[in-house]
């Protein structure tokens, strides 16, 4: 009988934290998982709603001014609803989906520290959500500036700063919703309430509590970087400087993601077997 030993035995790693091959494989598979199925296509189509709204308005004649459209659709609809909803859809099910589909076992049994598993999967959600945000932003900017002769370069020039602001927001949103997914059995409902009540309400009120939202620093950065002036009750002159906004968003993302890693490391996931199901 032939030997079962594979020709390439597992290399002896200094520490499982240096299992970069495992982490990169997990990143790739998580991205493939997230881009499969109905949920992804729903998310992709939803991301194109702002561009579709502009296109429909344009087909009706008399398109509104570009700045006004940009404020309403990009910093209103997208920033306040679509961006956080995308993060919620992707991040809240990162671990729960693996538990439901009973595939988490294959990850937990490998020489990968649990926080690394969680953070790698979170990174996949962040990358994909940023990609979707960039696509949606480019599509809507292209639609807004469709009449401009150099529309492509204009759209690209405005997509860059907006995507950067959204990316910072998505870091924090994904970290928050990833943690919710670890703590709650049904994180989607709580996530929607968080988006509508906390973010949607407080970020629009000119009061100190708006600084506790993710949306506020995202809008401050986007308004400044696109030179759009004061909107959403935000006085850019008195708003926090860019560095503070960036530090806030990155800080929230790092702290909450680390907390998520810690929670995941200490959590037990009892696998449903035919006898326990």
């Amino acid at each position, binding site marked *: *009988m*032939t*030997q*079962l*030993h*594979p*020709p*390439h*035995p*597992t*290399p*002896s*790693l200094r*520490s*499982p934290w240096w*299992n970069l*091959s*495992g982490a*990169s*494989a*997990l990143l790739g*598979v998580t991205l*493939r*998982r997230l881009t*499969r199925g109905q949920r992804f296509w729903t998310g992709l189509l939803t991301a194109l709603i702002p561009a579709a709204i502009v296109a429909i308005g344009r087909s009706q004649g008399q398109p509104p001014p570009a700045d006004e459209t940009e404020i309403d659709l990009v910093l209103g609809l997208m920033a306040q609803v679509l961006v956080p909803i995308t993060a919620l859809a992707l991040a809240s099910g990162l671990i729960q989906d693996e538990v439901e*589909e*009973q*595939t988490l*076992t*294959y*990850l*937990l*049994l*490998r*020489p*990968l*520290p*649990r926080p690394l598993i969680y953070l790698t999967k979170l990174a996949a959600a962040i990358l994909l959500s940023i990609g979707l945000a960039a696509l949606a932003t480019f599509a809507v900017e292209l639609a807004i500036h469709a009449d401009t002769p150099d529309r492509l370069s204009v759209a690209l020039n405005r997509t860059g700063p907006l995507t950067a602001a959204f990316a910072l927001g998505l870091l924090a949103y994904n970290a928050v919703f990833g943690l919710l997914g670890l703590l709650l059995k049904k994180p989607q409902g709580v996530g929607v309430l968080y988006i509508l009540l906390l973010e949607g309400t407080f970020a629009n009120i000119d009061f100190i509590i708006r600084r506790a939202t993710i949306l506020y620093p995202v809008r401050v950065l986007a308004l400044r970087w696109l030179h759009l002036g004061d909107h959403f009750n935000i006085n850019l002159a008195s708003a926090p400087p860019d560095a503070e906004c960036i530090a806030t968003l990155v800080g929230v993302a790092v702290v909450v993601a680390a907390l998520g890693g810690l929670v995941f*490391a*200490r959590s*037990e*996931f*009892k*696998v*449903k*077997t*035919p*006898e*326990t199901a």
Partner: protein
Amino acid sequence: MNDQRPEPNAIIRFEGASKWYGNVIGLNKLDLSIPSGITGLLGPNGAGKSTFLQLATGQLRPSQGRVTVLGQTAWNNPALGRQIGLCPEQDAFYEWMTGRQFVAFCAQLSGMNPRAARSAAEAVLDRVGLAASMNRPIKGYSKGMRQRTKLAQALVHDPQVLFLDEPLTGTDPVVRHELIQIIRQAAADGRTIVLSSHVLYEVEAITSHVVLINHGRLVAEGDTREIRDLIDTHPHRIVLKSTTLRSLATRLVAFPDVLGIQLRQNDGSILVETHQPDAFYERLPSLCLDEGLTIDELYSDDDSLEAVFKYLVAS
């Protein structure tokens, strides 16, 4: 048998390990040392086998006590992942992957670079008989192919300790035979294997060293022959088939060593429980001759490990 002395060469060790799920006991103060070689983990559904394996593979944290594998704490110990492999019971995969992609992914998770992972995956899939199908999506695999794929991912990183949770479930006799050969070879290569099953003859076909658990407790541990010896402390069950069923039962119930008699009308047999099977067998010929009774068929209901298991669990 089932003594509590620490086994110096134990590969897997449970020291007063308990696991509770709220008020439900999954495993109760288990003291057990599993040596190298193949050990069968036996118990009915819900006995605690899966909890045992999830504790041993570090997926669950013991509520009390300690679980070690190869001298290392099992719970949340990623370094141990290099040395253990698990063929899980649940029939779950990334269905959209091909068998080769899935096993290579598992190899990469174990730390191999992509090229080495692909090579290792192909080798182990060839060994488990999936070479011809490894480029097909798993969602199209038969039950036997899925079991082989699970076994392949458990072996791909060449672990020292292999946990197999009901690996033969749902397979046809041919596949079962092939899987048993693969498991035996894995043990012959020097691996320690814990094989969980509720089908006793499957385990008997692979190993004679078994651990029996029920209701989260250790019922018995040792060689199947040692376990069979335990029967002597429990009633033997003997089945007799006769055309004179009621007359025979009336005579048998008068025997001093007969503890109970059960008439089985559906197959025309009597199930006798006795503490002294030898004495019982000795009396039967004279009983038939003297009373003119006939016995068409006579056999012990204790011939399989299944019967041993029933006795021990019932006790």
